[in-house]
């Protein structure tokens, strides 16, 4: 019956178009999904179909670290051992003094070492996979650091893996300050024409505060990042809003593309929900990434700021009371 053939072809053709439109609409729906739902869908694929590929890179990465960086790791271990030995006396003294003053023990951070796994696929920029997860005490918003400084923050946690965003992610923000505590601001990423040109901007610095080139900028302890993690060093003046604020380009402490091994700062040592070290103490990480200032957070007397803030010696300044200082982080 030849009269039926055109109908059959037409029907099949229509079905193919409907199917195509269905998949196009489904793709559009994926884009419109809220972020947590997107991460759930992505997590399912990473944990199933793509798991062998991730496992392969994880194994290769670990083998590479073991083979190529053994000598360097040994040197770092020796240096760390020497530094710890020198600080042991201070630690004991500090614990005795805290006991005398009836202060509770400081909530120390737990460091989880992790191998960095990069997808290297289109759209996977600013994202790194780590081979530690919930079972290792990692939680969402735990800071990710390397020997050079701040790398990023954990965004999603699975049982044995986690997803972190590095500082090139557009949502990345960190409340930061100079080592001497004279300037506070927000650090945010700025994209260059190439990925290699991405850099950081220290924004919201008070107009009358000028920063010299090479000034170290560290996390201020406001928000999710403990105080004292090196973010970068001042490179040059980026922008001025007359009479109000300045922005400075920073040379990032860490180039995410070069990172193969990181540490996740967990709150495992503080299961009771004690505050992070940066919120409680002033000098939790001084010396780990940058030399501590001569007097830890020297008295802040900004005489050239109209209505400037004057803080008593020995009392840490509250960033919220300083003009132009950053508020809490993400």
């Amino acid at each position, binding site marked *: 019956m030849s009269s039926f053939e055109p109908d059959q072809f037409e029907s099949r053709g229509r079905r193919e178009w409907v199917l195509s439109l269905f998949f*196009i609409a489904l793709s559009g729906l994926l884009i419109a999904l809220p972020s947590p739902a997107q991460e759930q869908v992505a997590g399912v694929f990473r944990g199933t179909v*793509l798991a062998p590929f991730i496992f392969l890179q994880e194994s290769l990465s670990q083998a590479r670290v073991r083979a190529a960086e053994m000598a360097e790791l040994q040197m770092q271990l020796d240096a760390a051992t020497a530094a710890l030995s020198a600080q042991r006396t201070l630690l004991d003294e500090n614990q005795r003094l805290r006991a005398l003053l009836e202060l509770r023990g400081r909530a120390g951070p737990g460091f989880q070492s992790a191998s960095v796994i990069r997808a290297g696929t289109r759209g996977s920029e600013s994202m790194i996979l780590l081979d530690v997860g919930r079972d290792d005490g990692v939680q969402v918003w735990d800071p990710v650091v390397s020997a050079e400084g701040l790398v990023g923050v954990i965004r999603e946690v699975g049982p044995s893996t986690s997803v972190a965003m590095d500082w090139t992610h557009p949502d990345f923000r960190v409340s930061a300050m100079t080592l001497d505590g004279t300037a506070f601001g927000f650090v945010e990423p700025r994209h260059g024409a190439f990925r290699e040109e991405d850099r950081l901007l220290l924004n919201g610095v008070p107009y009358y505060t000028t920063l010299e080139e090479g000034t170290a900028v560290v996390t201020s302890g406001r928000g999710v990042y403990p105080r004292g993690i090196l973010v970068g060093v001042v490179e040059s003046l980026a922008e001025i809003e007359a009479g109000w604020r300045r922005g400075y380009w920073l040379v990032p402490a860490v180039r995410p593309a070069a990172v193969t091994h990181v540490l996740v700062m967990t709150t495992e040592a503080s299961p009771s929900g004690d505050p992070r070290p940066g919120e409680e103490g002033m000098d939790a990480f001084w010396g780990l990434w940058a030399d501590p200032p001569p007097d830890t957070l020297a008295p802040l007397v900004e005489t050239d700021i109209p209505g400037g803030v004057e803080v008593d010696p020995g009392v840490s300044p509250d960033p919220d009371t300083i003009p132009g200082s950053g508020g809490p982080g993400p």
Partner: protein
Amino acid sequence: MRRLGFYRTILCLLPVLHFLLHVGFGMGRGAPDLLAVGLLLLAREVRTGTAAGIGFFLGLLEDAFSLLAFGANALACTLLGVLGSRSRELFVGESLLFLVSYLLLGTWLRAALHWVVAGDDVRRDATQALLIEGPMDAVYAALVGVLILLVTGVWRRDPSM
């Protein structure tokens, strides 16, 4: 003549090779976009709806690593699958020149579609993305794709043509 079963098996293995190079060996942009090559060649072997489905699935796999533009790869690959499948009605070719041109244009189109669909957070300068990186990636992927097909012997010109 192509041995159809072996040819399709190789095409199905191209996306696997893509993830092996990009994710497994962590080569990143040093590896060619074999996902697009596999999808473009598979799309010419199947119906439009099936090609869209394959594109959607492969794109979704790439999106599993995308924090910034989730869904952009899925949409780009779905559209590429549809266009690749419909291209049979416009172009009938078995020559090496056609194969290279088809893969080159298709791979560039995939990059362009992703650039359009991805949000401002991911989108780079248009000149950089579409006129420099896009064509370079497309040439690389097309050449490697053709080389794989020639080396495996699945693509040979029909002597009768």
